[in-house]
């Protein structure tokens, strides 16, 4: 049972990197590829139908952490207090940018929220690199360490590449690239690599600190039957918004 829940947890965290990675990547590329308002609208419209289904993987990671690894939940989050607060604020700003950017038309308004998306995406990406570094050292080292910062830059570049690949898949040719589905899958796997690496290293520690059987049984009984529905809902999203002649329809709500 511990192993099943570890696999569940690992899939959620790696899945977050593979999926939200391209949302953050496109956010990072907004100031780079989105020089005109139209281009920024196209970039955001490309990720818009996926964001709500992607970011929720991290919410699920946190929930699993609380339910399955209650002893580690406080340790991990409290151990990284300033970093977690900063990352949360970046996440909030990125989301607010997406929800608010098209609600008014002025260029100052749009520019401000597009800036919030880019800034939030950057903060989250760098933050993830630093958090993974701290996790890899068993929270013995501060995330503000040259290696941590370097890993932050690496994660940021991976996400940006993944975002660019996604744009090449969903809006072929518009942003200088045309990418196939399998290539998107490869870039997703690459984007998830840092998380997978840390998960492999942390596996014995996580298994050791799993919640007792009584809790796991309840969770298994209540949650695992819904796993196919969760997966089905995700598949539905990808089938509905796959590239096609009107894949990026404007105006998009985001």
């Amino acid at each position, binding site marked *: 049972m511990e192993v099943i829940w570890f696999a569940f947890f690992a899939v959620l965290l790696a899945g977050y990197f593979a999926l939200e990675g391209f949302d953050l990547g496109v956010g990072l590329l907004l100031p780079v590829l989105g020089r005109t308002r139209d281009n920024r609208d196209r970039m955001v419209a490309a990720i818009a*139908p996926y964001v709500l289904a992607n970011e929720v993987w991290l919410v699920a990671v946190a*929930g699993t952490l609380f339910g399955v690894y209650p002893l580690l939940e*406080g340790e991990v989050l*409290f151990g990284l207090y300033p970093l977690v607060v900063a990352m*949360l604020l970046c996440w*909030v700003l990125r989301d607010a940018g997406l929800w608010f950017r098209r*609600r008014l038309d002025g260029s100052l308004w749009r520019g401000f929220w597009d800036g919030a998306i880019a800034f939030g995406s950057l903060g989250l990406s760098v933050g993830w690199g630093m958090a993974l570094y701290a996790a890899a050292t068993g929270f013995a080292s501060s995330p503000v360490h040259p290696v941590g910062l370097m890993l932050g830059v690496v994660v940021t570049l991976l996400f940006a590449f993944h975002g660019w690949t996604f744009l090449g898949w969903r809006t072929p040719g518009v942003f200088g690239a045309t990418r196939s589905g399998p290539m998107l899958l490869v870039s997703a796997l690459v984007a998830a690599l840092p998380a997978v690496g840390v998960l492999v290293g942390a596996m014995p520690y996580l298994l050791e600190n799993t*919640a007792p059987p009584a809790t796991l049984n309840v969770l298994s009984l209540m949650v695992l039957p819904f796993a196919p529905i969760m997966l089905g809902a995700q598949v539905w999203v990808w089938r509905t918004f796959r590239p096609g002649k009107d894949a990026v*329809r404007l105006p998009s709500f985001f």
Partner: protein
Amino acid sequence: MDVLDLARTQFAVTGSLHFLFVVLTLGLAPLVAIMHTKWARSGNPLHESMTRFWGQVYVINYALGIVTGLVMEFQFGLAWSGLSHYAGDVFGAPLAMETLVAFFLESTFLGLWIFGWGRLPKWAHLACIWLVTLTAYASAFYIMVANSFLQNPAGAVVSGGRMQLTDFGALLTNKALVFAFPHVVGAGLFTGGMVLVGASAYMLRRRTPDTEFFARSMRTGVVTAAIGVFVAMGFGYAQFAGIQAGKFGDDRNILAAVGLGFMIEIGQLLALVVLLVMLPMISSLPRRRWTHPILILMTPLPFVLSILGWMAREIGRQPWMIWERLSVADAMSPGLTSGMVTTSLIGFTAVLGLLAIVDYVLIARVIRRGPRALDLGATSPDDKPAPALSY
């Protein structure tokens, strides 16, 4: 303030902000789903307008529900790691279910509903908003399960200095839950209904051309608010049967008693107005212009009542995190400093507070512009729902 007061203030501020948006989400979700059902069945453009207009109010409100909720979820680990250490094996289960079973699906289906407009088959699109509603209520249920465990730690025993889950069924039939959950649902419907009434009163007062649209919205709002306030009041009083001795009788928790007192006084008055004045006048209310300023002024009250209710429930629990098991002081993360909490408290309050204000301004703007040029469900740049005047 010492570090414990700061950490409690941080939770109170973010939690209250979160609930202001959640309570409206709970009220509007089923209403939008019903409007969408009517539209799917009749194809009537008036029903389409209502779905898109109130749907847009609903999703803009939802945005702040999400971002404040993120901060809530992570705050347990940030500032209250003693809780997961002591009772994580019990308390973590409903929270995990909320995020995995409920919110994960809610967010996925909401994305399909918003962006699937004109893309999904009619009935599949309709199914999305009902699934969003269902999972939103499941979310609220699991959060109330978790909160009720803190109020009354049923279904668990202390062993080896930690709490262990012995009976999950007892968690779900907790006496602190069975009346409180319907009470929250009633409060949500009451709030959603009063927002429909207040917004419609505002538009009718301004002599909107969409009289039929807002007259219907106002009647829907009155019926919903009447059901909501009836349910909230009934289950509110029913809760007194299961309340812990001494919860409101202590000088220490004077604010809880004050919150409770004001909630009951204002709530009863509002219930009288809704059930004995607004409901009997329902057919003529849209025409009686003198009532509209009063209806507009009543709109914020359900939100105030919601916060007062949580003050009674949460401050009434003090000094316990888990009633007579774990104190809030012991639940706080060991090593937490005033500097840490002050910084995050300022950051969260400033960012979420400003975003909340922006969000309410945007909602007010959607309402003022009426059911035209809506972003939600727009399929071309100049797409407007047909004027509802002629229906």
